[in-house]
Every structure is written in structure tokens, then in C-alpha cells.
């Protein structure tokens, strides 16, 4: 078996998230170097604050300022920081109970080595230089020997509150399509379409996914199909996709390649969009160096009879 295809796959998204009143106040506070908690019905102060009591589910709105100094409740030494983490030099992950709070906040502690960190140690917030209203406005914590800082008595009301955050995420993968699809993609690069036949129902699937969805068994017998095919159904696309160099309107169609029992999809070119029809006979068009058909164009043959493709709709 030829080597399975692999390629880097990056999934990246900037989630834009709106904030409720409590989260807005907390993150706006960080921007202004104020740490806010929220008071529960049984008079506990939760930091970071939440909108609903984790025990009673009661709505919480009573914001209370706490100190930017606190005590480590547990820690872990991270000698190899990973992408996106608060510090790029070795640091301790810490849960810190800020002075005036009853719960602990997760963040990083900038300390020289694990021997300098212990549960119960005193720390204070180190503010980021550029603050935007995000948890990263706390750059990290740092060891602190002094007195507990005294809160300013902030009300939690801000002139210009932050109402949303952009939560950027990026994950890196090495994508592999598996055996069946590797064979299909490799064949396409040779301008051939290869499907797989189900050993049970004898249907030929293109593209093959390694399994027959009707019988639930593995497919393995390779079958070359096409190159010609029949348009079984289609739609007219009127919206131009971002980064896609195709003039609208154009036609996107299901195409049953000759010998296949499943229609694949592709763009129809070489014919005005309003003249595409069910039964139109088409063939793939490859561009120079292309690894897959750029589009399908009419062969000029008479249209296929409806009876010949009605099962493939």
C-alpha cells in the first residue's frame, strides 16, 4: 500500500464573545487595575466572579472589590511553557485566593524555580502594560512579602465598560485522510477517479470512505469510474465566496460518474448557468498541475434518460 497522505491542518478562529454584566465589570476592572468579586447570598466573595451562584444557581450581581494581593492555595511547576501560556519562561501555575475573596483564581506565577514556590505563599498581581479588558490583563502573579493591599472601594461601575472579548484559538493538526481516501486523492492526481465496491451490495462509492453506509462493511475493491458523468441535480450559486476566484452566478451540481452508485459534487463550467439541466452529460476539466478536477463541462452527448439516474438523486 502506498504511503498514507498527510498534511498540516490549522484550525484557527477568533471567537467574538459578549459579556454579561458581571463578566463585563470584572474584565473592565482588570483593564483599570481593579479586581472585582461577586457576593453570594451566604456572603461569600467569588473571584473570579460568576453570574450565578455555583451552589444555589441564584443570580449574582453584587460586585465587591478585593485586593490584588493574595495567597497560593495550590501550584504546579511548568518547566516547559506551551504556546499561548502567560509566560514563556518556566513558571508555576497557581490558584490564588486574593485577599478578601473566598475562592481562587487560576493564573501563572513568575518565580525563579520550584523551590521558591509553596502553598500558602503570598503573591500579588503583576499588571500587563497594555490592558484591554481580558484575563491576560493580569500578566501573571509575582512573589510578594508586604502587607495585603487595601482595595479602593470601587463600586464596579465604569464609564466605558468592556462588553466583549475576542477569544482567539488555534489548534494544529497533521491531517491524514486514511487508506481509502488516500487512494482516491492519489488517483485524482493522475486524472483518474477511483471508487470502492461494497462486497455485499456491490454498490460503487465515489469518493470512497472505506465503508458501505448501507451494509456497514469495509469496502476495498477498487473500481475506476468516469471520466464522464451525468448531472443528477444542481443549484445556482449567486453569492461570491470569500477568497474564491469564481464569477457568480455559477452552477454547483451532483454528478454521477459513469459506473458510480453515488453522486459526487462539482462545479459546472463551459455552459451558461441557466442552461444546466438534470441529465446533462459532463466530463472533468483539469487545470495545469491540478490535483483534482477544476470543474466539469458538457461533453456534447445527448442528455441521459431520467430512468438511468433517478436512483442516484
Amino acid at each position: 500500500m502506498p504511503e498514507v497522505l498527510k498534511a498540516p491542518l490549522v484550525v484557527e478562529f477568533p471567537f467574538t464573545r459578549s459579556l454579561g454584566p458581571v463578566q463585563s465589570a470584572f474584565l473592565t476592572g482588570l483593564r483599570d487595575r481593579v479586581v472585582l468579586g461577586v457576593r453570594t447570598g451566604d456572603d461569600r466573595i467569588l473571584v473570579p466572579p460568576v453570574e450565578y451562584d455555583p451552589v444555589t444557581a441564584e443570580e449574582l450581581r453584587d460586585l465587591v472589590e478585593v485586593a490584588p494581593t493574595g495567597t497560593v492555595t495550590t501550584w504546579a511547576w511548568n518547566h516547559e511553557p506551551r504556546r499561548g501560556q502567560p509566560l514563556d519562561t518556566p513558571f508555576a501555575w497557581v490558584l490564588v485566593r486574593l485577599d478578601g475573596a473566598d475562592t481562587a483564581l487560576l493564573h501563572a506565577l513568575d518565580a525563579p524555580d520550584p523551590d521558591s514556590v509553596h502553598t500558602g505563599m503570598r503573591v500579588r498581581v503583576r499588571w500587563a502594560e497594555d490592558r484591554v479588558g481580558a484575563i491576560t490583563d493580569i500578566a501573571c502573579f509575582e512573589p510578594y512579602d508586604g502587607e495585603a493591599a487595601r482595595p479602593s472601594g470601587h463600586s464596579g461601575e465604569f464609564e466605558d465598560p468592556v462588553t466583549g472579548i475576542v477569544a482567539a484559538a488555534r489548534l494544529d493538526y497533521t491531517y491524514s485522510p486514511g487508506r481509502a481516501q488516500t487512494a482516491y486523492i492519489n488517483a485524482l492526481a493522475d486524472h483518474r477517479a477511483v471508487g470502492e465496491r461494497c462486497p455485499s451490495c456491490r454498490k460503487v462509492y465515489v469518493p470512497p470512505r472505506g465503508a458501505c453506509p448501507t451494509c456497514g462493511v469495509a469496502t476495498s475493491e477498487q473500481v475506476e469510474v468516469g471520466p464522464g458523468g451525468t448531472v443528477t441535480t444542481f443549484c445556482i450559486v449567486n453569492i461570491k465566496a470569500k477568497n474564491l476566484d469564481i464569477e457568480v452566478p455559477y452552477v454547483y451540481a451532483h454528478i454521477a460518474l459513469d459506473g458510480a452508485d453515488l453522486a459526487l459534487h462539482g462545479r459546472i463550467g463551459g455552459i451558461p448557468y441557466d442552461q444546466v439541466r438534470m441529465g446533462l452529460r459532463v466530463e472533468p476539466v483539469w487545470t495545469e498541475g491540478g490535483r483534482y478536477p477544476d470543474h466539469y463541462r458538457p461533453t456534447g452527448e445527448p442528455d441521459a434518460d431520467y430512468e438511468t439516474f433517478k436512483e442516484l438523486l
Partner: protein
Amino acid sequence: MSRDIAVIAVAQSDILRSTAEQSEVEMLMPVLHDVLDRTGLKTADIGFTCSGSCDYLAGRAFSFTLALDGVGAWPPISESHVEMDGAWALYEAWTKLLSGDADTALVYAYGKSSPGSVRDVLTRQLDPYYVAPLWPDSVALAALQAQALIDAGDTDEPALAEIAARSRATDNPRAQLRGSVPQGAYAVRPLRTGDCPPIGDGAAAVILAAGERARELCPRPAWIRGIDHRIEAHGLGVRDLTDSPSTRLAAEKAGAFERPVDTAELHAPFTSQEVVLRKALGLDDSVRVNPSGGALAANPMMAAGLIRIGEAASRIHRGESDRALAHATSGPCLQQNLVAVLEGDPR
């Protein structure tokens, strides 16, 4: 509860560090065939199908729909999916059978962690406002919990190493790590690589059946006497990380404390989490804990919890256990916990 429901067949793949040559459905299909063969049932005989998986692992949207090809989803079947460990899919199937809507159910779960970096992937399940922007990885969060346990006097590093060694001294042929494995260097202190689960790809499947159907299809069904699952606050600093009240409550509601169990399959991906679970469940040395090796020997994401139920059931099928507890977890530091109690017929 009007119907007795049992796990009647179990199958799983080998758990491997990489399965790049197989798509998800290609990895899953032999397991599905295996579990069906054990009962003689065909996919068309199955009343309900439910799966557990997670798109973030392989970076593929709606990957469970492709995996459905492996169960023969045409013509239409009664089917559902949870974006969670398959143990929760089993819970859904169990309620479906309890309702009388079906007599048999196929539950499967799979995860391919190898395409991505599972430590980073798991950060995406954290609170997106206060926690995820800091990218604390799964090992780091478990390490915070481990240090809390050490500070509380509940364990120490040698005791954690013993849990690792005992777990991997398994004869489970499907396990990814077996035998003597060095504890290694710190991953995130106080956890060493030996305290952490291997990263692996794998799949598992079980079949459930109700009442007489179960007896027809299995010589010694593993009757599900109860299942319950509970969740704790997502704020790590709100929780007592040295305890697992959600596990204890789920176990109580599942009836685990009504009589002693002889076996416990615990889904504890980190050695320190076994300490928490043993305490929460009140397990003493009379109980065989994780004879399969548990998650420290093989932790295929999304399948490892279902495998715990499968391993507990298998021991009942083989007559090696009469009353077993199975546990599955999800989320950071044992945030969500499911407990099932399984029993064989009296001998």
C-alpha cells in the same frame, strides 16, 4: 425501574499512539463487527444506536456522521450522538431502553488524538472568558490537583508512582502501556510522565439488551443496577480539588453503596485522580481497582470511559466479578463523573 438492562457484549480496538493509516470509520468498523459477532446480531436488529466522540481531537467537523457509515445508517436507523465520552452515550442508550422504545442498543465511541496535540485541544473545553485564554493544559490542571492532594497529606510522589506501576502491571492485551514503565521526569511538577496517561487512538463498542433478550444473547449478562452522572462547578478555584463530591453523589444515586463491590474500573487519567476517586467512593483494599490497567495503561479520548464500563462488564461475563463499579470522567480535574453499578446473576 420496570426493565432490567444489561451489557451483553463488549469489544475494543488495540490502543495505539498513531493510526494515521486509518480514517475514523476504518478504525471503528472492526470493533463494530466484533461486538455484533459476539451476539449474532446484525445492524438491522439493533433498536437504538448511540455514539460518543469529539471533533476537536482530529480537527474534523461532524466527524461522527462519517463514522456512521460503519453501522450501516442507510436505510435510516434510530441514532444519536454525544460530543462526550461514550460512557455518556451508554447512559442515553440505557434511558432509551428503560423507556421501552428499544430492546437492544449499540453504543460506540472512538477518538483519534494523534493528529493534534491533546494537551492543547483540551484547553478548548475550559471557561472561555477567564481560563482558556491562559491555555492551561490538561497535565497542568491535573498537577494543581495533585499538589493539593500532597499538601492535604492524601498522597505523596512515591504513592503516586505505585499507582502507576500497579496500573501498568496489567495483562490487558489491548493496553498501550504495559509492564515496567519509568516514572520519568516531571511533566508538570509534581506529576511525572509516569503519572500521566499515554496519548492514544482507539475505539470501543458495547451492546445493551433488555430483560429476556439479554439472557438469550449472553450466558451471563452484566445487569446495570444503576447509572448516574453529576457535574461540579467549572471554576477550579471554587471546588475542593482533593475531593470528588460529584462522583460520590453519582455513586450513591446509582446504588453503589448499598452493597460492597468486588471490582472497580475507575477512569482516572492521572495517578492522583485515583487517590481522589478511591476516597470519594470509599474503596478499600478489598476491591480490585482497574485490573484492566485503567486510563494509565490506555486512555483513548472519548472511549476510555466507555471502556471502563466494558471492562467491568467483561469481568462479570467471564465470572470474575459479581458486582462491579464502573466510572467515567470528563472535564478538567474530574469535573464530570458518571458511575454505573453492574451485577451478574447469582451463582
